[in-house]
């Protein structure tokens, strides 16, 4: 099935009693099936808001998200999500966490177990399937979250700073693991990150957002062969370019005088 994502003129306004904040506007983007897109932007610019709207966890004020030829209304198992804080269920074992989506879909028990184990092996956690979440390290937890999101074979995988809370070394390992795991699946991935390095390392395209209200500042194609060499000239050039674009936005943000007031 075709799982291209079309985002048409998305806009989100948050209303509180005394003010309106425009988080995102004029946001249109076409993402091809199987593409890995990274979203980078200044802190608090609305990256997570965008991702949550694609996930259906947040209702857009106007505009639409279309996957294949179906408009997205509310969350659904066609869009899996990986959260920064893992959001694993601590009362469930690793295997039962991964099985959650299959349980929801009423997959019979034996098949559930077999499919969950396949993904647990894929993320390199074989032998840990009966462990509890609190017994795992951060990197292992994120592997479980990845397996849980992928086991239902979603058309799109949405990742909200998934490696943000991991240490630098684990982070690099996880980036490589992610590429290895998705290689065979042809999943479309939308990846929100703070790290330009991560974006260049992983993505087919990097979408740079402006400061709030977020819209697209630039889309950078990353046409480097994988595995990518972080020390290569092209890599550093792309990184520098994106960082420069972000810095421009941060300068504007500082000029507005609200740089430290924004949080994600």
């Amino acid at each position, binding site marked *: 099935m075709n799982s291209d994502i079309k985002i048409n003129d998305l806009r989100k306004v948050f209303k509180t009693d005394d003010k309106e904040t425009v988080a995102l506007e004029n946001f249109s983007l076409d993402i091809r099936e199987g593409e890995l897109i990274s979203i980078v932007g200044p802190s608090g610019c609305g990256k997570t808001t965008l991702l949550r709207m694609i*996930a*259906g*966890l947040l209702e857009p004020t106007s505009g639409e998200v279309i996957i294949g030829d179906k408009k997205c209304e*509310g*969350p*659904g*198992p066609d*869009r*899996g*999500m990986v*959260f920064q*804080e893992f*959001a*694993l*269920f*601590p*009362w*469930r074992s690793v295997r039962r966490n991964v099985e*959650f*989506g299959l*349980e*929801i*879909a009423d997959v019979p028990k034996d098949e559930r177990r077999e499919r969950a184990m396949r993904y647990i092996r894929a993320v390199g956690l074989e032998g840990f399937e009966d462990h*509890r*979440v*609190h017994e795992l390290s951060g990197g292992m937890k994120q592997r479980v979250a990845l397996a*849980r*999101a992928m086991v*239902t074979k979603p058309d799109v995988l*949405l990742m909200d700073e998934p490696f943000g809370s991991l240490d630098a070394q684990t982070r690099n390992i996880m980036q490589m693991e992610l590429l290895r795991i998705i290689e065979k699946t042809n999943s479309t991935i939308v990846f929100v990150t703070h790290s330009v390095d991560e974006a260049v390392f992983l993505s087919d395209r990097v979408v740079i957002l402006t400061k709030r209200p977020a819209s697209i500042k630039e889309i950078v194609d990353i046409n480097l062969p994988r595995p990518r060499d972080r020390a290569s000239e092209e890599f550093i050039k792309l990184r520098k370019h994106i960082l420069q674009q972000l810095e421009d936005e941060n300068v504007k943000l500082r000029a507005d005088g609200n740089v430290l007031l924004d949080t994600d």
Partner: protein
Amino acid sequence: MESVIDKLMYDDENKIHRYTRSIIIIGVSLGIFILIWWNLSLLLKNPAVPTPMAAWDALVYLFANGDAVSGIGMWGHMGISLERFFAGLILAMVVAVPFGLLLGYSKTLEQFSSPTLEVLRPIAPIAWAPIFIFTVGYTWGPILVVFVGIFFPVLLNTIFGVRKIDPNWMDAAKTLGASKLQIFTKVMLPSAVPYVMNGMKVGMGIGWMCIVASELYASYGGGVGYFISIQAQMGYWPNVYAGIIIIAILGILTTTLADYIHKAVTKRMGME
């Protein structure tokens, strides 16, 4: 010579040393308590304040020979009290947990019930004893008093537990396709369990006070509270103290049990 002294020195990393230390502290603490009691008793020369020895003798005698006034043995009295206590506990859990889940889930329902609950909550459970005993009798009356005592802490903790749920868990469940009902049963329910257990722990402490108080008031049909009440009426003061000691010991046992269940369940749920 030095090695002997080294061995006698307190070592915080040595398990036996730690246990010995806490046993000594508990022993000294209780010893001082008994000494104060003893002195008071000698000082006051009041029959309602017997010496600890007299209370101890009464306790031993009662366990060996039973209670002549009611014709029920001490184990019998304890059994009756515990039975009522656990009946009240089970009843409270069965009612308060589903109710709490519902009120935690629905803001409207919570707003609707909270005026009534806020009026009823501060009332000491024992205040209901006359009404309960008159309407449902000597067996169910005290059980209902215990029910009221345990109901509120369990209810409030359950509501709190549902409210405190990590929104990320809900979002994760939603993106995995869970329906509202599935979110309720597979996410809200399990995540509220540690809070329910905490409510039960608090409730059991209150419930144990409720059972003794309502038995003291009801003075019929057995139970440790009833035993104390009739012994006092007859002026058998050492027996009254024996009853109080039993209440203390059973109280410690029930709170220890509650603590254990709370810890075990929370650990099982991976939510320490």
